[in-house]
């Protein structure tokens, strides 16, 4: 019983480390993408223009919206794949 509880705790720790690493990766990618899209490489001024600021706000919103939708589509696709694999396995079993 103790061994099981320790394993769960270790699992939790590894899972939370993975989550932190993925959040960092997400943040880095998001900042790189939105910087590329919204801020032209013209360095005459040192402040952001209003347009650039608004672009960045909308870019962040869209990025996370896309991130969420891709997650939902991926789970839908993987359940679809799992279901079709199970159907194939069942068909093979009934044939033999």
């Amino acid at each position: 019983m103790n061994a099981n509880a320790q394993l769960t705790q270790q699992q939790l720790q590894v899972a939370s480390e993975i989550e932190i690493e993925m959040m960092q990766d997400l943040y880095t990618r998001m900042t790189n993408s939105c910087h590329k899209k919204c801020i032209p490489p013209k360095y005459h001024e040192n402040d952001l223009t209003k347009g650039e600021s608004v672009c960045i706000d909308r870019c962040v919103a869209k990025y996370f919206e896309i991130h969420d939708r891709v997650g939902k589509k991926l789970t839908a696709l993987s359940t679809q794949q799992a279901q079709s694999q199970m159907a194939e396995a069942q068909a093979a079993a009934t044939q033999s």
Partner: protein
Amino acid sequence: MEIDNLKGLRDFIITYNQIADECFNYCVYNFNNRNLSNDEELCLHNCTKRFVSSQTRLSRGFADYQMNKLNQANQVPK
């Protein structure tokens, strides 16, 4: 065993971030609105499906390559 599952989860989430990034970079270039347009949604749907299909096909090719290598390694001593 469960740690292996978590490693698989890690690989999956890395791929997930990659898909979201690539599809965002390709599909979204208009920031007049805060919401996604229909074109952007369609592009996103296609992008995700194609990415996943290509990954599946690539991993199958990789698995075949590994099988061939394994068979070659087993045959050499004889």
